[in-house]
């Protein structure tokens, strides 16, 4: 062995091309991740992050095929010579969609599964399962079925299941993308414990840098398949990306560019913004959807479980409402009720004087955007919607609205998760329903796609439509919403402007609020007041 003795993961001159594609996904990548590192992998959608993570335990190339040149050593073992199953005791991999990675049905069984495969002694296995339940703080879930867990719980069970067999290297693909801020904090805290107290190596990819940048001690940045490794500060500088505080730092010329809220506070003291510009007045457009006194109950084995309780509000023309709240607070249920596919148990939902007709009065983009894509080209998806609704108009106009006109002839399957979301949103937008709902449009969404989405929502609102999106992404809510609706346990607990609702919260405050106080929401707004 050469210089890789204390590297957990050592990648040497790796160039990898997927089968049936021309362009390599990874180009001449050489990276060492030392033992005990907490490493962040970042970069735009499609830049090579996921591919890189999947080389770490040999899924690339053993599961993908393709052309693989170079060398990857994990814990000193060559991944070309060892398929994933023979690296399972050294490296654990948690895919983006934890739920579909589950093999069994019970929490304890799932945690034990990897150990069973490796032939761990039953008594030891029993102890180890207990340890994992404690380490990830999920002991109260032990007898539950995996299907009943919330997103954050699932993610922690997936980590426990991956770690139980004792690997010292943990690789995670966007572990917090489907989690509420609390759930994300829990997961990050658990990961940090693994690094600090147990000396493990953790490598994770993430788009929402504000959630992770303060925790990690090194970064690997990807742009078009090429990688640069270094401190988080160096990599953020190179890629010109970063959380809102970094964007602000760049706009107003702070040097060094701050990475965390704490960095930014020190700098902000030297240069506070001027007084805030007048708060925009409340939107008083025509009511599009009126929800009045709505209760919804889900049946579970004949036992009704309340999902929404006495929810009343009106969505008006010109509004963009962010629907927030923990995993399981009732966000999806509320969207489904508003769209007319779910009958409320009590109360009423009215759109234009009658119960909403799905797809006509209200259209909804589902949490898994791929579940509505069925044509063999992006533009075909728009045509399918227009045909179904007997609408004219040019199909490409809808793609332009979401900034994806260049994808028109591509096959939806080849696209990244973020791009597919934009395609699905365009297909939903083409219904020309006055009310557009989006259920957690955040998975795999890089900053550029996010900007396109926000642009579309604003256009829709300006043209007299109304929009509502469920999200865990406080920065998206701060940047896009005109109003925030917060749910807890199926009840509305806050309803107001982003400045009021987010400024008032410990958990949901965006970075600008944390640095400059209530009312400041976006870097653009602060930079404007500093000029």
């Amino acid at each position, binding site marked *: 062995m050469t210089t890789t003795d204390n590297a957990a993961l050592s990648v040497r001159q790796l160039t990898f091309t997927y089968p049936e594609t021309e362009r390599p996904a990874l180009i001449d990548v050489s990276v060492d991740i030392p033992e005990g590192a907490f490493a962040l992998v970042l970069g735009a959608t499609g830049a090579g992050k996921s591919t890189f993570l999947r080389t770490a335990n040999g899924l690339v190339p053993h599961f993908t095929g393709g052309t693989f040149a170079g060398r990857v050593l994990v814990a000193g073992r060559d991944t070309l010579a060892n398929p994933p*199953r023979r690296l399972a005791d050294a490296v654990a991999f948690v895919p983006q969609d934890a739920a*579909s990675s589950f093999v069994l049905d019970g929490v304890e*069984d799932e945690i034990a599964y990897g150990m069973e495969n490796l032939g*761990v*002694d039953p008594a030891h*296995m029993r102890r180890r399962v207990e340890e994992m339940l404690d380490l990830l703080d999920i002991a109260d879930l032990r007898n539950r079925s995996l299907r009943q867990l919330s997103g954050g719980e699932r993610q922690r069970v997936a980590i426990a*299941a991956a770690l139980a067999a004792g690997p010292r290297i943990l690789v995670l693909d966007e572990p917090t993308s489907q989690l509420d801020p609390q759930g994300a904090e829990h997961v990050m805290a658990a990961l940090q414990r693994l690094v600090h107290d147990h000396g493990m190596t953790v490598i994770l990819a993430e788009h929402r840098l504000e959630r992770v940048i303060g925790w990690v001690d090194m970064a690997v940045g990807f742009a078009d398949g090429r990688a640069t490794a270094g401190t988080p500060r160096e990599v953020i500088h190179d890629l010109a990306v970063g959380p809102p505080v970094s964007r602000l730092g760049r706009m107003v010329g702070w040097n060094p560019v701050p990475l965390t809220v704490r960095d930014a506070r020190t700098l902000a003291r030297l240069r506070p913004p001027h007084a805030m510009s007048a708060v925009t007045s409340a939107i008083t457009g025509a009511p599009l959807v009126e929800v009045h006194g709505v209760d919804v109950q889900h049946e579970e084995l004949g036992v009704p479980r309340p999902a929404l309780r006495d929810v009343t509000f009106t969505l008006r023309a010109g509004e963009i409402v962010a629907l927030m709240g923990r995993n399981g607070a009732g966000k999806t249920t509320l969207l489904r009720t508003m769209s007319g*596919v779910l009958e409320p148990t009590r109360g009423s939902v009215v759109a234009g004087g009658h119960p909403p007709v799905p797809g006509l009065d209200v259209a909804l983009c589902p949490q898994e955007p791929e579940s509505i894509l069925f044509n063999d080209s992006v533009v075909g998806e728009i045509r399918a919607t227009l045909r179904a609704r007997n609408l004219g108009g040019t199909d490409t106009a809808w793609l332009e609205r979401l900034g994806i006109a260049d994808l028109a002839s591509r096959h939806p399957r080849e696209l990244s998760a973020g791009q597919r979301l934009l395609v699905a949103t365009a297909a939903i937008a083409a219904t020309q329903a006055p009310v557009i709902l989006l259920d957690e449009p955040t998975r795999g969404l890089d900053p550029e796609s996010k900007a396109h989405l926000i642009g579309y929502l604003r256009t829709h609102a300006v043209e007299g439509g109304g929009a509502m999106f469920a999200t865990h992404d406080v920065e998206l809510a701060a940047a896009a919403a005109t109003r925030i609706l917060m749910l807890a346990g199926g009840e509305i607990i806050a309803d107001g402007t982003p400045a009021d609702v987010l400024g008032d919260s410990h958990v949901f405050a965006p970075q600008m609020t944390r640095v400059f106080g209530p009312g400041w929401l976006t870097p653009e707004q602060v930079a404007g007041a500093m000029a």
Partner: protein
Amino acid sequence: MAWATLGGIVAFTTMNPFYLLPLWAISWFVFTQQRVPGPASRSFRMFLVAGLMAVLIRTALVFLGPFTASNVAYFALEGLRLGTILVIFGTFNAVTDPFGVVRLAPRRFQEPALAAALALSIAPRTVASVRRIREAQQLRGIPTRGARALPALAVPVLEAGMEEAHVLAESMDSRGHGSGRRSRYRPQSWDPSAWAMALPALVAAAVFWIASTRGFGDLQPGTNPLHWPAVNPLVLAVEALLVVPGFLPRQGNARR
């Protein structure tokens, strides 16, 4: 599992409608007594429909050959047998958690049991997936009924299924599946209720098997010439043993 396999044998050995029809009733009873919430119990309805379809389609196939009363009866009874097997299978699918069965399986059969359990979980998963995708397309204004709607449902369902299978395979391999070593976490021993479920079914299957080889009890009523099949009360009583699981206390553990 044992109940379903043995119940299936019972159905397989006979074409006498007076033995087959009670099996539908027994399946229904066991299902209503032991159902667990979730997509699994919805898939029972799917198997019920599949069972009825089997009867109808098999009967319809008679038009391909000479159309006589005895032919119709023969095809209908064969369809009924196939349908019965499907319904028994559906009952099993709806009332047990196949993953619980993996823990009951003898050690040597654990891997095939896991493969079987994963295969069985496809039906309820697909049912859930179809519902989800139908609703999503409805909210996009795309019609979801009729033949023209098929691609809008089938393509995403199949793609989601493929994607899921791929992620699952990756996950299993990443976690050492097939690495050659193997041990068991909390293996479940056969408790009295498991025996109470399997034993009566075993007796029933054995009796039917023997009866069919000895030509006892008119299990294979001839359809040429057509006659009203005889019923042996003793055989019917033995068949009734299959109903025992319906009387057992509901499995408290939601995962069983």
